[in-house]
């Protein structure tokens, strides 16, 4: 009797210890998150002013100035990336879900997985050899192409998954009415799934907005106002990298502000993403 009581207690205690360890692990994981947010927000806000959004970077040694060119540059780069990544992603996702139940479909599916695992710096190297070397100079276009390649796997996979969620009865209803398959797919299937696809697109865009590595030697960065696609283009992330490494305190502080602005831009995108997904579930 005593022995069984001992084993019972032992089991109980082991269980309690292991389960509280899992709670501790969760808490430990949240600590760095809290720290990163605390520093980014407190340091970022301290140096946030209107100049940051409207002024140009000052020359080395002078304090003040802003990153107007980098904000516009980041938006333009994700715009170029989207112009490449969105059509390729949506169309190939449509192929995979509607016609892709064959060997080739499986291969493409595997390759999109491969592509999503490829480090962004490698994509930067490829964009360099593909675009920068033939053009003989760095350009916003090369950076945009790198970002576009990075978006493709996310958009392809979400498009495929979202289209697969559309009930077969909807397709059959369309086909039964004599509507050709392509019209059924575009007007019924894609229309039903577009909210899910839009979230995938926003996810791809917001990830691209935070990328630095593929821009380092494609878009390079630019200290002047430039919206020319064929010229080097500034971006917030490359500025954060350069300013964080610099010995000037004023630049270090601006790096924090840039990080805050970047995170706000990205969270605005993912907020949009949440609003879209929420209304999707409401209509169901």
């Amino acid at each position, binding site marked *: 009797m005593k022995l069984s009581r001992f084993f019972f207690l032992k089991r109980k205690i082991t269980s309690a210890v292991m389960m509280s360890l*899992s709670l501790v692990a969760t808490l430990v994981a949240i600590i760095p998150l809290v720290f990163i947010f605390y520093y980014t927000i407190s340091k970022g806000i301290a140096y946030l002013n209107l100049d940051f959004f409207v002024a140009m970077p000052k020359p080395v040694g002078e304090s003040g100035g802003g990153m107007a060119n980098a904000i516009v540059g980041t938006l333009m780069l994700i715009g170029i990336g989207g112009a490449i990544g969105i059509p390729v992603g949506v169309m190939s996702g449509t192929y995979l879900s509607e016609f892709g139940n064959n060997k080739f479909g499986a291969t493409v599916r595997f*390759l999109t997985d491969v592509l999503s695992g490829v480090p962004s710096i490698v994509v930067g190297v490829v964009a360099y050899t593909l675009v920068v070397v033939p053009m003989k100079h760095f350009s916003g276009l090369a950076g945009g192409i790198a970002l576009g*390649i990075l978006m493709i796997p996310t958009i392809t996979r979400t498009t495929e998954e979202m289209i697969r969620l559309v009930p077969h009865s909807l397709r059959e209803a369309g086909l039964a009415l004599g509507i*050709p398959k392509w019209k059924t797919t575009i007007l019924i299937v894609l229309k039903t799934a577009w909210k899910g696809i839009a979230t995938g697109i926003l996810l791809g865009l917001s990830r691209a*907005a935070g990328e630095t590595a593929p821009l380092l030697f494609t878009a390079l960065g630019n200290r002047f106002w430039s919206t020319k696609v064929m010229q080097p283009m500034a971006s917030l992330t490359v500025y954060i990298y350069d300013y964080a490494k610099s010995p000037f305190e004023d630049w270090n502080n601006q790096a924090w502000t840039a990080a805050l602005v970047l*995170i706000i831009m990205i969270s605005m995108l993912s907020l949009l993403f949440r609003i879209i997904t929420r209304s999707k579930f409401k209509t169901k």
Partner: protein
Amino acid sequence: MDNSETQINREDPKTKSNTPVFAPKGRFKKFFSSHNIGDLIFERLTLLFAVLVFLLVILMGYEMYVGSKISINKFGWSFLTNSVWDPVQEIYGALPIIYGTIVSSFLALVISVPLSIGIAVFLSELSPGWLEKPLSFLVELLAGIPSVVYGLWGIFVLVPWIRNDVEPFLSEHLGFLPFFTGAPYGFGMLAAVLILAIMVLPIVSSISRDILKSVPQSQREAALALGATRWQSTKIVLKDAKSGILGATMLGLGRAVGETMAVTMVIGNRAVISPSLFDPSYTMASVIANEFTEATSEMYLSSLIQLALVLFVLTIIINALAKLLVWSMERKLRPR
């Protein structure tokens, strides 16, 4: 005039349906055998984009192979085993860089995988429903922070903390080990390991959580009905999810190996092999990020592209293994 035009337009579809405008014959008939030519165009168009994705991955490998040809021809396999990386004398051996990549990723996983499994267990087995959503959201928020912001935080918060508190403490109490010797410089392997551990955590924990949740509820109920404690039923669930969690770990490894910005900013960037975690090191991704724009000679650039090729192949292998493990786990669970 206007009236007559609309009339013609109205009649148009009728005439079209009576006499087909396009009636393929002979061998073209088979080609256009689908019911609607629109279907065919649509299918071919989407196929075109799928082929584009296919070609893109092939092209990436090909471009890097061509770009690194000079270096491959000169060094061959010794590129991977030579331990001198000296751009001034044009000698490129990637061994210290590969060493830095493997050690930093491995140690980061040693820290972050147990934590991730803890989080996954908490989220799937313990936490009440109202807590699970916000916690999962927080963990996923970690994944959404750009890598360069981690690096910024690393330079100004993590590295000073390591320099002033962690490294003096470690060298005082564990200084007899070769891993904790040398000057407490802050920038180095230790900082890279810690920042990688933080960055890998969200991906491993969120996939592990999904995998634990995919284990059928009946497994837990059976264990609990037999009088098992929470931990004992969790052990059964973990055993079922073993290969899936291993797959999640591999995906985390892929992320750690390819992580660039945050690592470049804190690892110290020196191509040396040293057992001490305090010493600076280098990873493949950070070498490329750091030296690519400075590469003046063709040989230098070519070696860096070869490094990218090695990284590309390595991440493909890691991700394929991960995919295989997660897939085998899903297949194992399905028939039940």
